[in-house]
C-alpha cells in the first residue's frame, strides 16, 4: 500500500512539471505581443515598448523566461498579473472561493438530481421510466451550457424577473443575495454533471443489484425498496462518489463559459480574460494551480478507491 502511494506520488511530479512546460510553450505560440497589448494606445512608441519588455523579461530568450518563472514558482511566488498589477496568488485566493462556491453548489445539485434518478432508473431497469430517465439524462449532457445559461437568464430574469441576471455576492456578505445570484449558474453547471452521476449511479446500482447477497436479501423476504436502498445503494455509493470527484475537471471547464455568460468573477473568467489580454503570468499560474488540484484529486480518488476496495489492490 505504502509503495503504491509512493509510486503514484512520484508520477505526479513529472506530470505537473510537464503541465508547466506545456502551458508556457503554448503561450509562446499565441500571436500578439503582450507588450503591445499592455501598451494600449501608446503602442506606437518604441521607447514604451522597450521599457515594458525589459520590465517583464520579454526581451530574454524563451528558456530563460521559463526558468525565471518556474524558479519563482518553486519559491512560492506565482508572480504578478501584467494587466492588473496584482499578485497572482492573491488573485487566485480571491477568485477560487467564488468558483468553489459555484462548483460546490453545482455538485450538490448534481447529487440531489443525479443519484435519486440513477437509483430509480436502476430499480425500474428496462421499464419505461428507465428509458425516460436515460433520455432526460442525455438531454442534460447534450445541452451546451452557455446556451442553457442564456435561456435561463431570458426566462427567469428578463421575462419573469425572479432572479438577478448576473453578478455575484459572496456568501458571507449576504447569503440570500448570494444564493439568488448563484443558483442559476450552479444549475447550469450542475446539470451535465447530474447526468453523468445518474449514469454512474445506475451502472453501479445494477452491478450491486446483481450480487448474490441481494438475492439472499430478497429470498429472506425483505421488501424491494429496502433491498434497493439499504443494501445495494450503500455499496454502489462508494464508486459513484469517487468517480464523481473526478468530474471536478469537467466542472472547471464548464465554469469558464458559465462565468462568462453570468458575469461571475471567478476562476474561469479570470483565465479567459487573461488569454485574450495575453496576461501570460496569470494564465500560467492559474493553469498550473488548476492542473495541480486536478492531479492531486485524481490521486486522492485512486487511493480512496483502492483503500475502500481491497480487491483492486495490485498484487
Amino acid at each position: 500500500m505504502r509503495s503504491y502511494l509512493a509510486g503514484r506520488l512520484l508520477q505526479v511530479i513529472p506530470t505537473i512539471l510537464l503541465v508547466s512546460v506545456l502551458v508556457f510553450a503554448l503561450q509562446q505560440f499565441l500571436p500578439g505581443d503582450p507588450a503591445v497589448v499592455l501598451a494600449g494606445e501608446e503602442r506606437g512608441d518604441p521607447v514604451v515598448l522597450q521599457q515594458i519588455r525589459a520590465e517583464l523579461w520579454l526581451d530574454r530568450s524563451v528558456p530563460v523566461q521559463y526558468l525565471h518563472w518556474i524558479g519563482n514558482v518553486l519559491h512560492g511566488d506565482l508572480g504578478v498579473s501584467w494587466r492588473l498589477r496584482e499578485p497572482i496568488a492573491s488573485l487566485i485566493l480571491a477568485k477560487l472561493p467564488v468558483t468553489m462556491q459555484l462548483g460546490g453548489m453545482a455538485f450538490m445539485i448534481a447529487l440531489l438530481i443525479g443519484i435519486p434518478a440513477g437509483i430509480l432508473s436502476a430499480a425500474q431497469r428496462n421499464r419505461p421510466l428507465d428509458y425516460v430517465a436515460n433520455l432526460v439524462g442525455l438531454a442534460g449532457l447534450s445541452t451546451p451550457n452557455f446556451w442553457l445559461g442564456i435561456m435561463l437568464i431570458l426566462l427567469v430574469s428578463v421575462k419573469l424577473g425572479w432572479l438577478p441576471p448576473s453578478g455575484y455576492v459572496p456568501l458571507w456578505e449576504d447569503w440570500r443575495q448570494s444564493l439568488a445570484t448563484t443558483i442559476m449558474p450552479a444549475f447550469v453547471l450542475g446539470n451535465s454533471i447530474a447526468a453523468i452521476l445518474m449514469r454512474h449511479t445506475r451502472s453501479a446500482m445494477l452491478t450491486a443489484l446483481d450480487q448474490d447477497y441481494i438475492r439472499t436479501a430478497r429470498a429472506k423476504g425483505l421488501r424491494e425498496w429496502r433491498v434497493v436502498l439499504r443494501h445495494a445503494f450503500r455499496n454502489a455509493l462508494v464508486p459513484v462518489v469517487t468517480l464523481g470527484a473526478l468530474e471536478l475537471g469537467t466542472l472547471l471547464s464548464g465554469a469558464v463559459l458559465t462565468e462568462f455568460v453570468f458575469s461571475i468573477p471567478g476562476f474561469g473568467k479570470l483565465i479567459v480574460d487573461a488569454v485574450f489580454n495575453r496576461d501570460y503570468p496569470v494564465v500560467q499560474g492559474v493553469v498550473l494551480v488548476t492542473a495541480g488540484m486536478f492531479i492531486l484529486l485524481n490521486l486522492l480518488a485512486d487511493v480512496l478507491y483502492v483503500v475502500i476496495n481491497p480487491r483492486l489492490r495490485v498484487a
Partner: protein
Amino acid sequence: MTGQPAPASSPALIAWRRFRARPAAVLGFAVIALLVFVAVAAPLVAPYDPVTQSYSAIRKAPTLQHLMGTDENGRDVLSRIMFGARASLLAGVVSVLIAAGIGIPVGLLAGFAGGWVDGVIGRLVDAMLACPFLILAIALAAALGPSLTNAMIAIGITAAPIFVRVARGATLDAATYDYVEAARATGNPPWRVALRHILPNIVPPVLVQATLAIAAAIIAEASLSFLGQGQQPPAPSWGSMLLSAQRFLGDAPWLAIFPGAAIFLAVLAFNLVGDGLRDALDLRRR
C-alpha cells in the same frame, strides 16, 4: 495472465441487431441522417440565401415567410441554421478524425510497446488532460488564427489524449486474446500483429468514443465560435449565431433559441447513437 478466447465471429451482425432494438438509438441515427441531409442539400432545401441581407426586415419574429424569423442584418434564420449545420457537422467529424488520427497510433504504440515509452506517453496524456479542455482549445485556436479549419485542428489536438487512453486500454485488452498471443509467438513482426490482429479489436471502443467525441466537438466548436474564434462572418455557424444573439435577448429571443436548439439536437443525436453503440457492442461500462 491467462489468455481469453476472442469474441464470437460476425460481431458486426450481432451488434447491428442489438442497435436496431433500441428505439432511442435508432431515433438518434435518424436525426443525424436528417442533419447530414440538410447540411449537404442546404443550397437546395434552404428557403433563402443565408448571407443575403435585407435592411427592411431586421429582427422580425417568426412568421410563415420566415419560419424562424430574421436576424440583425435581415437574414433568414432558418436558412442560416441549415447552412450552419455544415460548419457544425464538419467541425464535429473532422475534429474527431484528427483526434483519432493522432490518438489511435499513439495509444497503440503505448499499449504495444509498454515500458518507458508507455510511461512517457502516459505522463503526456495526464498533463494534457489536467489542463481545462476549453482553455487549451481557446489558446490553440488563438495561436493558429481565427478560422473554422484552425478551430477544428485545435479541438482535434485537445481531444486526442482521450483517444490515446481508449486505444491503449483496448490494445492492452486485445493483447491478451489467444490468437493474438499465438500470432506473436509464431514470430510475426510487431507491426503486422498490431495492424492485422489488434487494430480490428480496438475498433468497437474507439467507435463508441468517436461518436461521443463528435458530440463534444460540436459543443466545443460552438463554444469557440461563441468566444469569437472559429467560423468567420458572414458564413453562419450555430455558435457565432448565439454570440450575435446575446445582445438582443430581450427584443429578439428567437435569435438565441433556435441556434441553441440546433446544437442541442445534434449533440443529443450523437450521444444517443454513441450510447446505443456502446450497449450494442456490449462493452463494460466505464
